[in-house]
């Protein structure tokens, strides 16, 4: 090993000294530096573009209603008679408000309790789905890893297809079952299909398949049963993927739109994702503050779990399990 390295260095050196004129190395370095700086500037520009909507949401949430109307009136302002009221002809995209005002937050948090209620609805809808989907999926992932029976391939393929389907394809099945079980208009109609969604099963199975079988065999020799192997070996080893899948599931259901609109008839029980986008013109000046509050849980989940998100997928290889 040492020798090989030495040889390599020798080859490199001989190349540098023999073939190329002096100063070439420096030129190469300069070119490399230019490339890196171009890459940095490019990435920075793209990052800025990507960050724009989020910055806009947060800074504009500190805008007073009058300033909001002056800047965005062209789009949102609607008079009570229904006609458009043109405060300004055009939108004026503004990143920093003239005057920082907390009036939006004051109204949202203190006066109109509706938003907080919807926020709470969102929480109640999402958390059970996230927790139980992960639990069911962790079991199933281990099952797919260990079970080598004939129908395994068929079942897993069915899961992949099901996972790929847009919600509208599963809409009728979903509606039918909810109807049979009498779950319509209750959160159960959203919770149960969410809990059994195959998405996290797919991700976790893919990861668990990478656990070396020797770990399992060693545990078996020590007399551990399947359940013990699962809790003591497979689960700790897949902590990263379970966390990162959890983030994806949380973000996905935090933004659900179709399910509540179809399965719940009472708008009082809608989550904030639906309610906020149907915000009426009179309250649109609050929209950015509500959106910012709505952003906080995702932000927290993201800040807490970003590392998992990045490292959890590091070992993901093939798609097929």
């Amino acid at each position, binding site marked *: 090993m040492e020798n090989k390295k030495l040889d390599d260095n020798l*080859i490199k050196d001989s190349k540098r000294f023999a073939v190329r004129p002096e100063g070439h190395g420096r030129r190469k370095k300069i070119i490399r530096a230019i490339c890196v700086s171009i*890459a*940095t500037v490019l*990435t*920075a520009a793209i990052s*800025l573009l*990507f960050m724009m*909507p*989020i910055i*806009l*949401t947060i800074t504009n949430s500190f805008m007073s209603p009058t300033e909001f109307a002056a800047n*965005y009136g*062209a*789009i*949102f302002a609607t008079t009570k008679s229904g006609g458009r009221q043109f405060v300004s002809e*055009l*939108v004026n*995209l503004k990143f920093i408000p003239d005057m920082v005002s907390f009036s939006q937050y004051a109204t949202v948090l203190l006066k109109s309790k509706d938003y907080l209620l919807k926020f709470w609805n969102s929480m109640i809808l999402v958390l059970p789905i996230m927790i139980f989907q992960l639990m*069911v999926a962790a*079991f*199933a992932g281990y099952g797919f890893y*260990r*079970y080598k029976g004939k129908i395994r*391939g068929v*079942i897993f393929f069915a899961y992949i*297809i*099901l996972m790929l*389907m*847009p*919600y509208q*394809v*599963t*809409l*009728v*099945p*979903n509606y039918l*079952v909810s109807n049979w079980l009498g779950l319509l208009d209750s959160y159960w109609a959203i919770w149960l299909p969410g809990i*059994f969604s195959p998405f996290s*099963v797919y991700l976790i199975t893919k990861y668990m398949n990478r656990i070396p079988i020797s770990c399992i065999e060693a545990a*078996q020799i020590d007399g551990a049963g*399947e*359940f013990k192997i699962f809790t003591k070996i497979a689960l700790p080893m897949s902590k990263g993927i379970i966390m990162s899948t959890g983030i994806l599931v949380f*973000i996905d259901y935090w*933004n659900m*739109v*179709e399910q509540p609109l179809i399965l719940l008839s009472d708008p009082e029980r809608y989550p904030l*994702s639906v309610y*906020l*986008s149907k*915000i009426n013109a009179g309250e649109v000046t609050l929209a950015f503050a*509500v959106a*910012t509050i*709505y*952003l906080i849980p*995702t932000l927290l989940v993201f800040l807490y779990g970003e590392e998992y998100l990045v490292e959890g*997928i590091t070992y*993901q*290889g*093939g*798609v097929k399990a």
Partner: protein
Amino acid sequence: MMMAGSNVKKAEKISDKKIKRQKLSKHQKRTRWGSAAFLIPSVAGCALFFFVPYLVVIYYSVLDNPIGKHFVGFDNYISVVSNSAFRRAVTNTGLFSAVAVPLAVLLSLLLALLLDNKIPFRTQFRSFLLSPMMVPVASIVLIWQVLFDQNGAFNVFIRHFGFAGNIDWMKSNYGIVVVVFLFLWKNIGYNMILFMAALSSVPQDIIEVARLESAGRVKIFFMIKLRYLVSTIVFVTIMSLINSFKIFREIYLLTNDYPFESVYMLQHFMNNKFKNLDYQMLSAAAVIMSIVMVILIVLLFKAEEHFSKDLDG
């Protein structure tokens, strides 16, 4: 997987299995059933909420209506396929996925390669690019309205360059382009970290050898790195495909039930059929969609198998 190769291979496999079965000890049998037990909650739930009702959907698709229950064969399929709204929806959705998904894969791969250079603030850039993922759908809708309305910021911006700038983008033929941008903005970050992870797991010694053989960066990428990225590319394609269907949320919130023609998606069609209680049409459309997806996935897996066959790990 289940898509076996030649018949010979199949025969070999079967005989292998037979031998294995004979050798299966009592202990192994117990293990097999023990491991199958872990699958039960998920499989039972999926069967109850998705697979069994899906059979009902297939049943509905060959009936005249769910109440009368007259068998009509493929009539529903024929009327769906000849429906002009359905065709419009299929064209739009197909076009969108065919453009947006490869773009999302390609651009995120390029970004990952860009970040793979040793540029400063790498982790920060990574977080920035990942951040659109967490913006709630409702604020996206708000901001996209501010940007692409007739009086929106984008029009104001392009007026500086002498364009007329009075198009209401979501209600024009360019609506779909706006949606593609929205999709890319939202999904590229996650795809990018998938690629970054894959790039970092390419064996360094192989690259080192190639470099000594004086292979250029481009050659190294195409001859070595790309081979190791095949399975990640397939994975990213699958994730992007899922997300390309999920972009309907934003389209729906921006445009409601009956949007401008260019952004009328398959999901709009199905949603509206559902609201009109036209279950048999919806079921036929759903079955067609599933068949297309099965074909697509089988092709994708075949491609993966083909491109990564002489690669271990």
